[in-house]
């Protein structure tokens, strides 16, 4: 595909890598956090670190929607799925997330009717086709996927669906960033901002990072050249002593975001007072719930949920990994007790999780550090 090869050209990459190397002051170090799991995945999948000088270190951030769901919410999901007459629909990534009593895939093997869908509208269609069943959609994701959940709620309302609901776990990007920036143990020099989320919310919500915390942000696309270019832009800001929110992904992202998408979210959902994040604990005003007016489509109102707060497994260090305080391989159980086939933590499940990306793609020293073959 032309589109793909254009943004994956090794030749352009090599040129950009040279310009990055020229900006780096030998001996100093640059810690840049890519907020979004999509970037983490791209970095490992394309071997982007191989093109970076040793001074530039990429730190993985909290932007993996599967990773941040706490165990208690996953237990709630399974409790809904195991109720009589329920068809529980979910994106594939959530199927393998471990909960107290196994994953959704295990619940399915025990007899629960769990089905993989590609969009919430597929779930609504299932509800139409199965009028005698209750169809529940496990809504996860940041502001990126919230609009399609919101549109589905509107559609369900228009159709008067009475056997459809969503289990809403939409979370917001800016609040955990503030939590990370407030943590005393982490030294970050800049942020690669999430591209897809920003198509919805724009670049404005990151401005506090530059103005209050004096750290540069570059919102980037997901092709490897996008990521590399955003690293170059961050290093330029750092060497020139600037800290601004810049937009590398201009072909898609606007400062004010997508007003229509924001409007449908606003119409159907409201910000929760607080929400638990895996490993990060409760963060105020960090997630979306279904508005009262649409309450009939809210699985949390329709079903009895255990709603208990479950502590993460003691060995699990996902919180530190999600905050960028630990690199995946530094977790004590990484690759031994915690592997993609037997994950302990969520970061090992989703392909956007730092542990899974590193385990599946990254178990290789950087080219600059590799012993010559």
């Amino acid at each position, binding site marked *: 595909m032309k589109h793909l090869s254009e943004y994956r050209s090794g030749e352009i990459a090599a040129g950009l890598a040279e310009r990055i190397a020229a900006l780096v002051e030998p001996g100093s170090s640059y810690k840049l956090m890519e907020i979004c799991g999509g970037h983490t995945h791209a970095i490992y*999948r*394309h*071997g982007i670190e191989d093109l970076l000088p040793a001074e530039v270190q990429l730190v993985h951030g909290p932007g993996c929607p599967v990773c941040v769901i706490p165990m208690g919410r996953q237990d709630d999901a399974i409790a809904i799925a195991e109720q009589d007459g329920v068809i529980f629909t979910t994106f594939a990534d959530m199927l393998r997330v471990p909960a107290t009593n196994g994953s959704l*895939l295990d619940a399915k093997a025990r007899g629960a009717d769990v089905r993989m869908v590609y969009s919430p509208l597929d779930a609504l269609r299932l509800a139409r086709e199965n009028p005698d069943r209750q169809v529940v959609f496990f809504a996860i994701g940041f502001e990126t996927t919230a609009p399609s959940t919101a549109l589905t709620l509107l559609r369900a309302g228009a159709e008067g669906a009475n056997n459809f609901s969503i289990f809403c776990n939409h979370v917001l990007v800016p609040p955990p960033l503030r939590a990370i920036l407030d943590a005393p143990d982490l030294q970050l020099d800049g942020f690669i901002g999430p591209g897809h989320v920003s198509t919805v919310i724009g670049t404005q919500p990151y401005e506090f990072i530059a103005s209050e915390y004096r750290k540069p942000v570059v919102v980037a696309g997901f092709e490897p050249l996008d990521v590399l270019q955003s690293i170059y832009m961050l290093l330029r800001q750092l060497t020139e002593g600037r800290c601004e929110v810049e937009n590398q992904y201009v072909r898609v992202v606007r400062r004010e975001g997508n007003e229509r998408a924001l409007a449908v979210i606003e119409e159907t959902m409201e910000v929760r007072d607080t929400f638990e994040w895996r490993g990060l604990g409760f963060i105020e005003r960090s997630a979306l719930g279904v508005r009262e007016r649409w309450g009939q489509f809210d699985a949390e109102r329709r079903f009895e949920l255990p709603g208990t707060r479950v502590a993460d497994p003691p060995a699990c260090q996902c919180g530190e990994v999600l905050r960028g305080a630990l690199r995946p391989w*530094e977790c004590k159980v990484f*690759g031994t007790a915690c592997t993609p086939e037997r994950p302990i933590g969520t970061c090992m499940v989703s392909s956007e999780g730092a542990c899974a990306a590193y385990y599946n*793609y990254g178990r290789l*020293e950087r080219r600059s550090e590799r012993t010559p073959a």
Partner: protein
Amino acid sequence: MDEREVLERIEARRQRASRRLLDERITLAHGAGGRSSQALVEALLLPALRNSLLEPLADAAILELEDGTQLAFSTDSYVVKPLSFPGGDIARLAVHGTINDLAVSGAQPLALSAGLILEEGLAVAELARYVASLGETAREAGVPIATGDTKVVERGKADGLYISTSGIGLVAASSKLGAQEIRSGDRVLLSGTIGDHGMAVLVARGELELEGAIESDTAPLHGLVAALLAACGAAVHCMRDPTRGGVATALNELARASRTGIVIDESAIPVAATVAGACEILGIDPLYVANEGKLIAIVGPEVAEVALATMRAHPLGREATLIGEIREERPGMVILDTTFGGSRVVDTLAGDPLPRIC
């Protein structure tokens, strides 16, 4: 401990450990061809059934008769949904799949069996279509279906029709093929584009807002294999048809079994534009998507050119390319040099987010 030590420890553990089966119940991941499937085979099936014929866990078992004749014997089951898709149907898959398992074992397929499991309520006209396809596919390939069986199960117990095929083939007396023959310096050849079958089936399910002209590549490989063996003889060291789990999984199995490292070049691996586009939208790596008519051949470097020319001269290998090389370093691992100029590990996946596509 620094990063390298951690990696070395994990790698050593990965290579040493036979797969363990820790799950309490069978999940769809056990059928996806990745590490969960391997765990099922290595930890549950093999210990219970262990014998020298099964032990190599190859595509086909090789039986040696008293007069020295070698027979290849293989079996496979097909549970694809939908039953028909662009480029083929369940019957064509069932015939081609078993022929291919025999072919990559170096055998000339002699005969097949077919077991049909029918769901109560299946339209006879529909069944007739698939049976006709079964016959036609076998005739085209020149391999008869010599025996068969039918069973009917209650409504809701099968997706219309399941087919299981077995086959036997004759192996040339001089043939020595297998992962144990792979040597450092060998070249890795691939007969054409990857991911066509898996994506064709996925799109045909109609659950995606995706439309595109993606056709399954289902095809019998015995002709291509025969041509390759005739041209290169014993310099062909090992062959695989990368079905479930795709090229990535097939290469990982070979790296693990031969205790060599495999380095492949992303830019050399052909992917049809439509397949690449669909994979991109769904976030799927085509390296893990099933193929049903592609050949991976590992050959000595001295015949690499001839082997490539031979494959390209065959209708099923027109887009054949040299995709990589066998190395001593990093035994058991597959490394991809990306188009972008980096390198990464290509691992076997734990399961597959897309259940049952082959």
